[in-house]
């Protein structure tokens, strides 16, 4: 008898089919990929001032938008999409095949990674062309950026899978998930400069990954002098990576423990 295809191979196939399905939902493609660009354009035109010497708000905002993109394509997309798949029978059908849950997760991760990469590239092009963002030249910065990308994407995706058991139905999912994200964005320094927020908001946001994600991306794309204007007067790179890694692991553990194929 032939052997079953490996978990990784099935995961890769899932990833390809997930991307194909995602691309065919035009509205969702436009919303997920272009919405951050539109927000960039609006905020960039409204707030033109500098927030520190040589740093414009639009540059600060770009970092927040990249971080938000990672949350939207991962956490938001999965926390809404998985309950819908649970409702329409997709998950139950998959459960009836020999494909393991791990392959399903790998497929989701590939889809999220592809979508985030595409989005980050779009935002960086927009930032360089219209908002005077300078791409870093030091390989060290790019190395940190790729670590943040990997941990941020993994954390965002795994927390999305974990959160997917919260909405009671696919229909209601976006009503529950979207406000969570918007509040996080306000608290974490996406729409406002973080250090200007009330102390209690800062403390609250510091528990969650989005604040650290924004800060990490600022550390890559803003001048090093700006580190002085952060809460700790430094980028806190090590701490950022640690917090992101912890949330990634927390997300993985919760998703593996709580993931349900169907509502029995």
């Amino acid at each position, binding site marked *: *008898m032939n052997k*079953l295809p490996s978990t990784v191979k099935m995961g890769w196939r899932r990833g390809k*089919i997930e991307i194909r*399905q995602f691309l065919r939902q035009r509205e969702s493609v436009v919303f997920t990929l272009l919405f951050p660009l539109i927000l960039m354009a609006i905020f960039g035109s409204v707030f033109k001032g500098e927030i520190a010497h040589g740093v414009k708000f639009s540059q600060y905002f770009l970092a927040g938008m990249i971080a938000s993109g990672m949350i939207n394509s991962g956490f938001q997309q999965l926390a809404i999409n998985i309950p819908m798949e649970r409702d329409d*029978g*997709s998950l139950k059908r998959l459960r*009836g*095949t*020999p494909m393991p849950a791990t392959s399903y997760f790998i497929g989701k991760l590939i889809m999220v990674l592809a979508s985030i990469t595409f989005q980050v590239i779009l935002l960086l092009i927009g930032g360089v062309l219209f908002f005077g963002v300078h791409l870093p030249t030091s390989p060290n910065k790019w190395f940190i950026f790729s670590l943040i990308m990997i941990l941020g994407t993994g954390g965002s995706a795994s927390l999305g899978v974990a959160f997917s058991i919260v909405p009671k139905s696919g229909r209601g999912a976006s009503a529950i998930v979207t406000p969570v994200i918007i509040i996080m964005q306000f608290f974490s320094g996406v729409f406002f400069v973080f250090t200007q927020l009330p102390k209690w908001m800062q403390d609250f946001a510091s528990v969650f990954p989005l604040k650290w994600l924004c800060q990490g991306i600022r550390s890559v794309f803003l001048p090093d002098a700006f580190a002085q204007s952060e809460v700790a007067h430094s980028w806190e790179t090590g701490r950022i990576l640690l917090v992101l890694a912890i949330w990634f692991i927390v997300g993985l553990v919760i998703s593996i423990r709580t993931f349900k194929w169907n509502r*029995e």
Partner: protein
Amino acid sequence: MSVIEVRNLHKNYGPLQAVDGVDLTIERGEIFAILGPNGAGKTTTVEILEGFRTRNSGEVKVLDFDPQFKGKGARDFRDRIGIVLQATSDAGDLTVAETIHHYAGYYSDPRDANEVIDAIGLGDKKKDLVHTLSGGQRRRLDVGLGIIGNPELLFLDEPTTGFDPEARHDFWDLIRGLRDLGTTIVLTTHYLEEAEALADRVAVINKGKILEIGTPANLGDRATSLARVQWESAGTMHEQFTDKPTAVIAKLMHEFTDEIPKLTVSRATLEDIYLQMIGEATGDTK
């Protein structure tokens, strides 16, 4: 060797006893129908056999495997079965061909995807998106996904609900074709004519209990049950239930010199038997 062995199966949802002491033995190569009204426990029973639900008590062996066991061997078990769930609405953004080819990649020894597409009669719909298919075509695709892994055992849960009569007959031909290839088929239905047309054996289930198991021809002692002889005499209808209808008619031929007026001899239809069984079980006098 039997493909499915079920002994004293119980499943309850809170106070509701959905499956209440079911025994089943299903043999290799047969089409076995589980017939019953809505809410009788058909889907619960089948979903326990498929491994989707856990039981409260009883013994279940499907292909020599306990389907609720989640550890080693569970994937190999699912590699050997095919499942057609009750109507779903998933994966609408892929084409027929993409969907079938993709699912082929989940199995150790899949059937040829193009052959399956032709077998389910969707050859000319290959490049159509799934959400553009009609209800009947979608159901055929479901069957295609159920058989792509070349299963020894195929479960069909109410496969033709909502079909028009012609689509239903085409669908039955498809299922008979699978049986002829050696696939064991377990189907649930609430259509009598479906059980009668397709099944080698039928289990009638109501309120979680099996009322009877038999061939469609013998269900409810149908083959040996009393015949009903009806005729008219002096302006009123008479009827007599008998196990010797020929003798009754011979006697009547003496009474009437000419044709016996309005003579009919009939036996219970499957529907009579079924309604009677369901009625007795429910306590209705009918």
